[in-house]
């Protein structure tokens, strides 16, 4: 039954939809968390310490996220391959017929934006999570102690250093713009895939999906831009 549910054309979309929405939730929290930096370095570092300090629960969430990523990516690739197989010869000229079509640059490029986001995520983990002061990379320079407490990881310092580089700041910004594109189609599409779409609210969901995508992406831009232009 599960094989049928997840292996079929409906199932594939179900998997991408569910995992997609899960990842959206994660990304949204991540974005809000990042904004802690605006409350000062200490708040930011304590927030980071709070998360890693949760221990087994934190690892469980991480494992879940990893699984979501893997399923999301695998089905996404399957769909992209299926698409090539279903139309090996393309059109000489092709254009959208316009509304009610929801075909956009965003919807057409899900596999491309998705792949870039994947590469980015790996790189992002290496530079932050597994960066100086991170697991397996003890570096006392990236530890800080507040009010005589135990030293904790100085994430804020790492973030400040990284985003001082224009390459890093603008590269990150560019990827976040792609994330906006990915979520522009993704959020709405996930809800349609889950079969949850009530016709009367379809337009609303499409708009909300777009706003949510844009909001998340833009939210991520505050930290790097503020840092790069020395605003905080």
């Amino acid at each position, binding site marked *: 039954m599960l094989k049928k549910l997840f292996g079929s054309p409906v199932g594939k*979309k179900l998997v991408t939809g569910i995992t997609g929405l899960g990842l959206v939730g994660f990304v949204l929290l991540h974005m809000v968390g990042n904004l802690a930096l605006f409350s000062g370095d200490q708040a930011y570092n304590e927030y980071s310490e709070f998360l890693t300090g949760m221990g087994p629960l934190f690892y469980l969430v991480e494992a879940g996220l990893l699984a979501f990523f893997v399923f999301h990516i695998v089905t996404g690739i399957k769909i992209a391959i299926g698409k090539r197989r*279903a139309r090996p010869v393309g059109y000489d000229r092709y254009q959208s*017929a316009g509304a009610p079509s929801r075909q956009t640059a965003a919807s057409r490029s899900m596999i491309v934006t998705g792949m870039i986001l994947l590469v980015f995520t790996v790189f992002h983990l290496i530079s932050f999570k597994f960066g100086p002061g991170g697991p397996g990379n003890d570096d006392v320079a990236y530890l800080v102690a507040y009010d005589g407490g135990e030293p904790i990881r100085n994430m804020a310092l790492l973030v400040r250093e990284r985003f001082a580089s224009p390459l890093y700041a603008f590269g990150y910004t560019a990827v976040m713009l792609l994330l906006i594109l990915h979520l522009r189609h993704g959020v709405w599409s996930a809800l*349609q895939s889950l079969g949850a779409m009530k016709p009367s609210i379809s337009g609303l969901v499409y708009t909300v999906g777009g706003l949510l995508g844009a909001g998340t992406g833009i939210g991520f831009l505050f930290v790097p831009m503020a840092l790069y232009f020395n605003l905080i």
Partner: protein
Amino acid sequence: MQIKLKVWRQKGPRDTGRFEEYVVPDANPHMSFLELLDVLNEQLIMEGKDPVEFDHDCREGICGSCGVVVDGVAHGPQQRTACCQLHMRHYKDGDSIVVEPWRASAFPIIRDLVVDRSAFDRIIGAGGYVSVSTGAAPDANAIPIPKVVVDEAFDYAACIGCGACVAACPNASASLFTAAKISHLALLPQGQAERAQRVVNMVDQMEAEGFGDCSNHAECEAVCPKGISIKGIATMRREYIKATLSQ
């Protein structure tokens, strides 16, 4: 008015095919797009060339035989219109038009603009019916059906099976076609007995025919001559999930 045409020519399924360009010097704004092709063909025959083969029959937008991609849009620029009812008044003197067949591996090209859409028949055969043999029916008014329900069922039943949804879909998915029949029958009391089995079998057949997956571009709805809504695809998925979980 003068119209230039760039038309896909392909002698058979194994031929590689190519575009050829033609000029129709005296098109009339009142003629339909297919009548333009008729005029072109009369010209080609008298020049000793093979006319362009294309499927067509009722020429009033209901049989679903015709269907070509006109300037990159299935059935051409006028929405809710099959290309047999696309009139040349939408064009002006000197325009050029690119004409291509439906492209999908599940719709192999037979010749020029003619494609094989028998995959659709097999999807219907997998469950797109109510199993009621002739003579077994109760009185027509025995089961009242609310007007709103039957109206919605009709919106789906209006599908003409032309294949534009597949042609326009960036993934060449047949989800709108399949969903339309599933939604039509799922709404009606007559369709309940086979409801679960129907959706599972039809979706499986759709996959077996080699159509792509739906990525919710909704391009299908925009080119559908009957304007069938992708909310049917949401219904199909709901039905499928319910059916699979209850199996």
